[in-house]
């Protein structure tokens, strides 16, 4: 195990990195450690943890902005911001352990990205330290700012391959007053439910492609409507949608009612959930993709391609489960079975997408599986450019070696 340094200031980070780069030591950066399974673990000579950099530097609630250090957990930050009724509206899994730095580095987000986007949409400033110990910043503390290149966005999703993030500034939102979730069951036609005259052929077709068509119809109708949900989440066991509305009380309830009507007109069954039940529902939802064994694939696609992808998965004969952002097209697919079967699913899935129309990245998998497939998938024609950026920031490849996208 490599040495783990826990710097308590930006100067200490700079000092540690400058030393590492002079001595040509490979450095692995750690946040909360919630995503170390993503991609191969970097071979490192020294580890740097951001844990002790955990302050909320400033909460400018009148301006709806906050500057926070990289090692603070999202949950801790949001607890602090809640004192003025505000938050960073990100809800990736394990918010109690995931650090701001890690969330930015992986551009991770949860169901509410349907409305609020991902870290790259909320970040307005960043402080970093380069491998040679140079501390630099871009952006600032104002929500609108186009002076200079946007290093904040360059760092989001870089998996720590370019520099160490020491703090970030976000634009904030007011915490909504009320919430309702409509659970939309598309697994069988609610209009036929309870009918005793179902023929066998009919029930067979219900378990086949029909529910996916219904899913597509409901998602499409919701997207085409003027409703403003904060989340449109898919679950496949059973096949259903969780559609959340967060606003003032009157609007959350009214919109939930309208969503119910849309779902029912497409033959889906609905239940409106609120209060403690709603909280429990979302907590269970968050755990879904990661709790059980199996390979986990982060899948992105255009919303209209979702139901065909599900139908294809159902036809593979493998055991799988999917959850995620149906309205945005960012999902997590868990595949059971042996490595060979998982690899087949991953490869076939990638082959379904024309360039730019979808991606499948392996975010959790056995060593056996990783030996069979490429974690990131086909890179497209901009990979040389990404390599050139990495080369500029970290010419000797000392920072989080191999951990960046496509092994940058």
């Amino acid at each position, binding site marked *: 195990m490599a040495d783990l340094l826990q710097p308590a200031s930006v100067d200490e980070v700079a000092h540690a990195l400058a030393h590492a780069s002079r001595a040509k030591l490979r450095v692995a950066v750690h946040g909360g450690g919630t995503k170390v399974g993503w991609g191969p673990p970097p071979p490192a000579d020294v580890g740097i943890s951001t844990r002790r950099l955990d302050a909320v530097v400033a909460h*400018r609630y*009148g*301006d*709806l*902005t906050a500057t926070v250090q990289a090692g603070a957990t999202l949950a801790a930050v949001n607890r602090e911001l809640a004192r003025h*009724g505000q938050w960073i509206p990100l809800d990736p899994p394990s918010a109690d352990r995931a650090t701001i730095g890690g969330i930015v580095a992986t*551009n991770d987000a949860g169901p509410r990205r349907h409305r609020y986007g991902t870290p*790259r949409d909320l970040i307005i400033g960043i402080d*970093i330290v380069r491998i040679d110990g*140079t*501390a*630099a*910043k871009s952006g*600032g*503390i*104002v*929500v*609108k*700012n*186009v*002076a*200079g*290149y*946007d*290093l904040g*966005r*360059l760092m*989001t999703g*870089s998996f720590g391959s*370019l520099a160490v993030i020491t703090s970030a500034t976000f634009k904030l*939102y007011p915490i909504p007053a009320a919430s309702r979730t409509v659970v939309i069951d598309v697994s069988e036609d609610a209009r036929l439910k309870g009918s005793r005259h179902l023929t066998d052929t009919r029930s067979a077709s219900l378990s086949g492609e029909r529910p996916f068509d219904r899913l597509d119809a409901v998602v*499409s109708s919701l*997207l*085409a409507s*003027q409703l403003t949900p904060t989340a449109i989440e898919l679950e496949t066991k059973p096949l259903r949608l969780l559609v959340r509305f967060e*606003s*003032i009380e*009157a*609007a959350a309830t009214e*919109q939930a009612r309208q969503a119910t009507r849309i779902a029912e007109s497409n033959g889906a069954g609905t239940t409106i959930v609120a209060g403690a039940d709603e909280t429990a529902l979302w907590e269970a939802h968050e755990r879904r993709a990661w709790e059980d064994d199996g390979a986990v694939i982060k899948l*992105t696609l*255009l*919303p*209209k391609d979702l139901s065909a992808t599900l139908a294809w998965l159902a036809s593979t004969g493998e055991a799988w489960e999917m959850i995620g952002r149906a309205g945005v*097209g*960012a999902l997590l697919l868990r595949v059971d079975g042996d490595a060979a079967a998982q690899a087949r699913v991953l490869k076939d899935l990638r082959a379904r*997408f024309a360039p*730019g129309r*979808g*991606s499948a990245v392996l975010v959790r998998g056995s060593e056996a599986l990783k030996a069979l497939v490429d974690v*990131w998938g086909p890179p*497209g*024609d*901009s990979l040389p*450019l*990404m390599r*050139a*950026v990495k080369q*500029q920031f970290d010419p000797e490849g000392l920072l989080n070696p191999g951990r960046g*996208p496509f092994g940058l």
Partner: protein
Amino acid sequence: MHAAFLAALERIVRRDAILRDETELLAYESDGLARLRERPGLVVLPNSAEEVQGVVRACHEHGVAFVARGHGTGLSGGALPVPGAVLIVLTRLNRILDVDIPNQRITVEPGVVNLEVSRSVGAHGFYYAPDPSSQQICSIGGNVAENSGGAHCLKYGFTVHHVVGLELVLPNGEMVHVGGSAVDLPGLDLVGVLVGSEGTLGVVTKATLRLLRIPETVRTILAAFESTEAAGNAVSDIIGAGIIPAAVEMMDRLTVEAAEAAVHPNFPKAEAVLIVELDGSSAEVHEQFRVVEEICHRRGGTDVLIARNDEQRARIWKGRKAAFAAMGRVSPNYYVQDGVIPRTKLPEVLRRIRELEVRSGLRIGNVFHAGDGNLHPLVCYDEGIGGQGELAEQVAAEILTYCIDAGGSITGEHGVGADKACQMPKMFGAADLETMLLVRSAFDPRGLCNPGKVFPTPRLCGEVPGPYRQHPVERAGLAERF
């Protein structure tokens, strides 16, 4: 221009797509910042992405610098020609390539006019959110380069929030695709870096954009206040009530007068006019609008005007969006600034601007995006009066120092360009600028793409203030060649 280079260009584009005639070049000497002028070496008007690629490749091969230009409405001299360089004008790449309503995407060429995008999908109930006041005349390519904003960006974000994929010709002539139409494609967020890079990293030849559903309800209120402070307090209360309006705009007496003279929106004659627009679900908008109305009254708002229909709303926006252009009615020349401050610092910064107005003797109008603290001070001057142009420039630069003092930025949406490159060291340290230039070196190692913009150079800024060090490309003498 070398004959060999010209011959190469003629093999790529039609002869009439190359402008060299002095009088023809005249129209391209400046962009929306007319104060800065340069004669381009020549102008090319390619007709396709392939032609753009051919032109850039020829530039690369012959070591000729180039500058991309959209519709030339930029206000920071971003499309200002560089002497001896090629100006690549993208107005002929104006096709809408793909409309995908179910997935809420549209793919367009860079010369497409901003408003065209919304027009082309309006019948389906969708629109493109970023709405610069220049939206009838500016291009998507220019918007991407500047990360343009608009009145409604407070709630819906800027260009960067609405671009999902780009096709780009790199300065070495290679064509690459970054992002796509699906979200979160793996890799570095190069879209995030390219948007707002002011044409210094390559030439955009296609953009895939996100479309939004037209909201169920829109409500607009206009109120007059006896001071900008009072109007500012109303804005604070609105934000404090947990409301994120679609837009919050403020105009002061001078800009209201100018707008009145130009487009007759019939605004009240007051020290400050505040426009607040809410949109979204009916239930939410109705409840929150009531709160906004109450706040406006409580903070001393008079002449409250609530748009009763689309026509009334359109008139309010016409008055606001005409504000810049209308300044011509009250002053022979004006200089627009684009500084940003944390919204809560508004009273303090406005007070300093007023003191400066008195001290300098130049009138300064103020029209701003009050929700996000983006000021647009309009410094009025008369070029005919000796020295006033320079004075206006100094006054504008001083306003930017107030913004920086308040923790803000020198530009919120117009870009640094050639105009403010020398101000960058006031906002960023040497290490910050040097780190940004690493990105530049990755994309454009030879410094051929829109040189001299965004980053300070000794040639432009003389002795560069602060401890700024030269970029290696400059040191090698490459970037200073033109």
